[in-house]
């Protein structure tokens, strides 16, 4: 993993059209500004992990339990 030291207000360019900017540093929290094309998905890491976990736990062993259920 590439690790770069940045100060408040400094930026990192990723490719031609993505810019990360350190907006604020306060204690152990860093606020990042992200400029990216609207076509790029931007998702917090823990949210991605939660979707991963939810998906992996979603698959049932069989369909017997839902057969009687009607909406």
């Amino acid at each position: 993993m590439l690790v770069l030291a940045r100060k408040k207000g400094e930026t990192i360019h990723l490719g031609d059209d993505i810019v990360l900017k350190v907006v604020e540093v306060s204690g152990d929290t860093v606020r990042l500004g992200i400029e990216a094309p609207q076509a790029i998905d931007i998702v917090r890491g823990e949210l991605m992990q939660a979707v991963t976990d939810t998906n992996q736990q979603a698959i049932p062993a069989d369909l017997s339990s839902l057969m009687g259920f009607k909406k």
Partner: protein
Amino acid sequence: MQIETKFHGQIEMDSQMIYQFPTGLPGFEEQHQFVILPIDGNDTFQVMQSTEEAGVAFVVANPYAFVPTYDLKIDEATVNSLAIEKEEDVFVLAVVSVKEPFEQSTLNLQAPLIFNRNNQKGKQMIVNQSTYSMRHPFQEEAK
């Protein structure tokens, strides 16, 4: 084409019925092709089955059947990656986390499955600031 399924045995599927998920789903990034199969005797739910791995099969449901007021805005990244041109080409399903007893199952309303039936593409869209949960209870709607 013949596909092996988790709940339906071996079935014959027209390749035009296959939805392409270019980036897979979170946790299942290797699965790029799914079909939507009916469940005999149950119109409320369907199965979204991977055509590449029989064991990967989600129970899915129309979220509006459970939450008629479900308010969803499809983001630009999804419009772009699914090449959505017309709203009427789009349909939405929610992954069901199946629990025992079944009434305690939940719907993932924060990361719905978005489909473009015009080009057979699909994607699980993750909503960053969602008023809906990843584990929305069935029961709540019974009140």
